[in-house]
């Protein structure tokens, strides 16, 4: 009965213990499905639980209540057919570019992976930097390493947690285009968490707006802008602006609400 949906959240709630000993409700009755091969952006205000949803899908955390399924299988543990690109740098600082990208195939004991690794180094434009360590690379280059590190394993589901949020605006739009180029070759299912609505619309087939935490689906938009897209240029087209307005109207209330809560509880999450 789950065939067709690559990702399915069924009445999923998740709570965490805070250091103070109270509970923090990250997700409450979250429900949505994603078709295989779709590029879905999850947007929502800060601290609404978007990232938590991804960690449940990756099996890094278990839901408190409810069921998370990936490709028809309930997620109980870390699933290596899932790729994860983290918000902050998760490349291994003691491995050079080559070893970082080769890490997946090596862990998975893929034989003769040298050519594959070189191919991916070339795909993300890092040829010539094989022997550099992460600290010798720029922020954009480190992101490319992280992308290649994940995509080389051909994940059927790629999770991205605000991957470009730490980059400067120009590098970010370049990376957005490069991600699009890579994704169009692989066509895996992607869940992309961001709070940048422009980025979400430029990249995704579908934008899901989440409520201020605990996260529930507030609205669901289909983005039928033509592909292949050029993220850098598309944001000035009237179609783009129309969708942007429509989604922003929905998102704005949630952003305001989240902001109001922050003002009431300046100590942050309770």
């Amino acid at each position, binding site marked *: 009965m789950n065939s067709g949906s690559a990702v399915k959240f069924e009445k999923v709630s998740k709570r965490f213990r805070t250091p103070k000993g109270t509970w923090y409700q990250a997700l409450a009755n979250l429900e949505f499905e994603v078709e295989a091969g779709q590029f879905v952006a999850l947007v929502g205000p800060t601290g609404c639980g978007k990232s938590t949803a991804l960690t449940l899908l990756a099996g890094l955390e278990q839901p408190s209540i409810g069921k998370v399924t990936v490709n028809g299988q309930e997620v109980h543990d870390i699933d290596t057919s899932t790729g994860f690109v983290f918000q902050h740098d998760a490349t291994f600082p003691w491995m050079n570019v080559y070893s970082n990208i080769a*890490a997946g195939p090596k862990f998975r004991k893929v034989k003769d992976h040298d050519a594959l690794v070189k191919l991916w180094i070339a795909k993300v434009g890092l040829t010539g930097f094989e022997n550099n360590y992460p600290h010798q690379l720029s922020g954009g280059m480190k992101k490319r390493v992280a992308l290649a590190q994940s995509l080389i394993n051909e994940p059927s589901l790629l999770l991205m947690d605000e991957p470009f949020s730490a980059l400067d605006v120009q590098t970010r739009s370049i990376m957005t285009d490069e991600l699009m180029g890579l994704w169009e070759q692989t066509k895996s299912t992607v869940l992309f968490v961001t709070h940048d609505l422009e980025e979400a619309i430029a990249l995704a087939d579908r934008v899901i707006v989440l409520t201020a935490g605990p996260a529930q689906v507030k609205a669901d938009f289909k983005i039928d802008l033509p592909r292949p897209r050029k993220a850098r240029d598309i944001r000035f087209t009237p179609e783009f602006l129309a969708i942007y307005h429509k989604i922003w109207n929905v998102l704005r209330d949630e952003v305001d609400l989240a902001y109001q809560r922050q003002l009431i509880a300046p100590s942050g999450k309770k």
Partner: protein
Amino acid sequence: MAEEYLSDQEIKRRNTTHRIKVHSLQLGFAVLLMGTWQILADKKILDPFFYGRPTGVLHQLKVWVQNGTSIGSLWVNAWVTFYEATYGFFAGVILGIIFGVFLARNKTAAEIFAPYIKVSNSIPRVVLGSIFVLWLGLGSISKVALAFVLVFFPVFFNAFQGTREADNKLISNARLLGASKRDVLRRVIFPSALSWITASMHVSFGFALIGAIVGEFLGAQRGLGLLIATAQGNFNPNGVYAAMVLIAIMALSAEFLITKLEDRLLNWRPTQVSGSEL
């Protein structure tokens, strides 16, 4: 206002001049200290019977090298101390790493052993030297044991802390990339704990030497510690200093080798000022 960039030659020349200046001032400082000591001793302001003097130290070293010491060849004694310290050092480092990493990865074991470790760490360890001499005799083994105990704890605590501080995100990433438990330990946790471990190794070799020498003090048949004790008994301050010079040479050579090893193991780190440059 400068009209042109400095030429590479000019920059190089300035750097060299600076280095020469620093080195000659360092040398000058040593000459000043030793000279003052020598003059004060010669004028009997510092009584050379108790305080010795630099020429006396040099003479003592010469006599030891040429004629051997009262307890046998100088090289044999230096070698004994060196290998006692080295054995203790390696045993302490290896077991410290094994226990540190294991306890940091095993929460229940850490909870069980925490009070015992705290208690054994709070024992003034030099006192154990007496017990080791009683248990293990006057030979080298009791010195190795004392050096081991002194090295084990700092390495253990650093390995424990370094393992605990391993970034969870990197561990998650490795597991998602398909790493087995062993891969995670070898490729993620160990490398990230390594900078902590090598940091503790710098102080540890000094501890190992202390262990060997104090052990020899407490009762031994050979070694630099015994040489110092003998010189002390004979009211020979120059002998004490001469042995100290040899120990210092040993400690500095070990420090040099450890720094080389660290540079090799941690070549992925951004260059930074290390202890030896301070």
